[in-house]
């Protein structure tokens, strides 16, 4: 499971860094195939086991304009999967109903995951892009007490 968070095919290039070919080599009608092989069983294969094509955004990093990022705190998370359900970019990585972390190649930093996180304190919080995840977790807030 170690290659799930940072596998070698995901986000391997900047968007627009694909090989530029001439007019005689481009596909007709801007037709772009998502996979390099037969994908009839694709729903049963996990992302890291799929052969995404060069023109699938899976193989590109499309997160270069993100300025704030969600950081995931495993110690608080209850694996409810709310963030996985709501993320508009499929950037919450979960396996066997256990959250593993964030796909930073595709996360745009919208913060929906933080909004929908039900724990106290939240298991996902937004931090500046430059801050390391370890430093972020070191400043994690404590549980808020209910006011009587």
């Amino acid at each position, binding site marked *: 499971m170690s290659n799930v968070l940072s596998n070698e095919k995901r986000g391997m290039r900047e968007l627009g860094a694909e090989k530029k070919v001439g007019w005689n080599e481009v596909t007709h009608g801007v*037709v772009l195939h998502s996979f390099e092989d037969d994908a009839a069983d694709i729903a049963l294969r996990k992302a890291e086991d799929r052969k995404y094509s060069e023109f699938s955004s899976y193989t590109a990093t499309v997160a270069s304009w993100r300025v704030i990022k969600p950081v995931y705190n495993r110690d608080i998370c209850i694996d409810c999967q709310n963030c996985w359900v709501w993320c508009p970019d499929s950037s919450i990585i979960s396996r066997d109903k256990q959250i593993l972390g964030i796909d930073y190649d595709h996360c745009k930093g919208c913060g929906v995951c933080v909004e929908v996180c039900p724990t106290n304190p939240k298991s996902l919080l937004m931090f500046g892009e430059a801050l390391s995840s370890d430093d972020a977790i070191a400043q994690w807030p404590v549980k808020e007490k209910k006011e009587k």
Partner: protein
Amino acid sequence: MAEKIDLQEIEVWDGNYAAAQAMRQAQIDVVAAYPITPSTPIVEGYANFMADGYIDGEFVMVESEHAAMSGCVGAAAAGGRVATATSSQGFALMVEVLYQASGMRLPIVLNVANRALAAPLNVRGDHSDMYLGRDSGWVQIDAFNAQEVYDMNLCAFRVGEHHDIRLPVMVHQDGFVTSHTAQNVRPLSDDDAYKFIGEYKPMDELLDFSRPVTHGAQTEEDWHFEHKARQHKALMDARPVIESVFAEFEKVSGRKYKRVESYMIEDAEVIIVALGSTVESARLAAQQLRDEEGIKAGVVGPRVIRPFPFDAIRDALENCKAIGAMDRSCPGGALGMLFNEVSAAVYTTAKRPLVTNYIYGLGGRDLAIVDIKAIFRELKANADAGKITTQIQQFIGLRGPKLAFFETREGK
């Protein structure tokens, strides 16, 4: 399984019904339509065939022509054989999606019963809608009568669906004059027609779940130019494909078609270039002038408007002396499209025949044989003088003071 129809050797059909019959024989998967005069009976007739059990397919009634062509784009991308019909304002509303269809390389067949564009609102025939589509990247075929509407529909599927072409195809006919005039039509049997068109072989269809595919991706300055160039190349390459489809059609029908139709041009001094039913009127006028006045008159009608037959039209015109290019669309502050494109073609010949422009027939205004004869006589005067003797663009059949623009600088 759809029922077949036993057709007579000669049927009496108008252009609209001929189109509906050809669409029925093509065994189309999806027709998405929003009827508009004068093309309404095409999709109405098709819907009748479906209600009566003669069609296996989907007929989608939508809320506008924009939606009609959008439905066609979706169905074609999904992998179906697709067609529809429209006219005028409906065509104008489709324009945005016409460019989507050609850019996405989807072989949709669109029947257009040509009609004027508002304002003023007008339901009669002229070529404003045809001209509006001329940069849309579609193959545009023009039928001059009901028989040709039928024949060109069968050919349109073959051309557009050819895997080297994969482009949408319009089949034009004159609103009312062709679309609503019953004429003798010799159809193929259902089996022969389908055998000629053949089973549809989709490419990169969305419904192939083993090869998921994106259609209509966005491209910016880094890719757009290459894709448009490839699309243009495919359209230019459609010329020999159209010729081979016409040759095969001749084998099954006995009827011979060319990208540029020519009548009596071998010895012609003066030639009228026109589109639609005007070609047939001009043929009659030319024959009468030959018989009555000895004027060596000929007629050229581009069967295929896009890809523009720059090569074939030059072959047809280069040996005459004077050409009248007839445009049935208000040129909007320029010379007419046929004038401009015909002039460009013959400008690259050694003899450079004289070309003048006639704007006629707007909003369904009739063009009589005597009007065409008068044009031929003017062309004859140009040929004899060796220069243009009239103004270069003239409006004909118009009430009020003579409306004409530009004079030649030859001989000054």
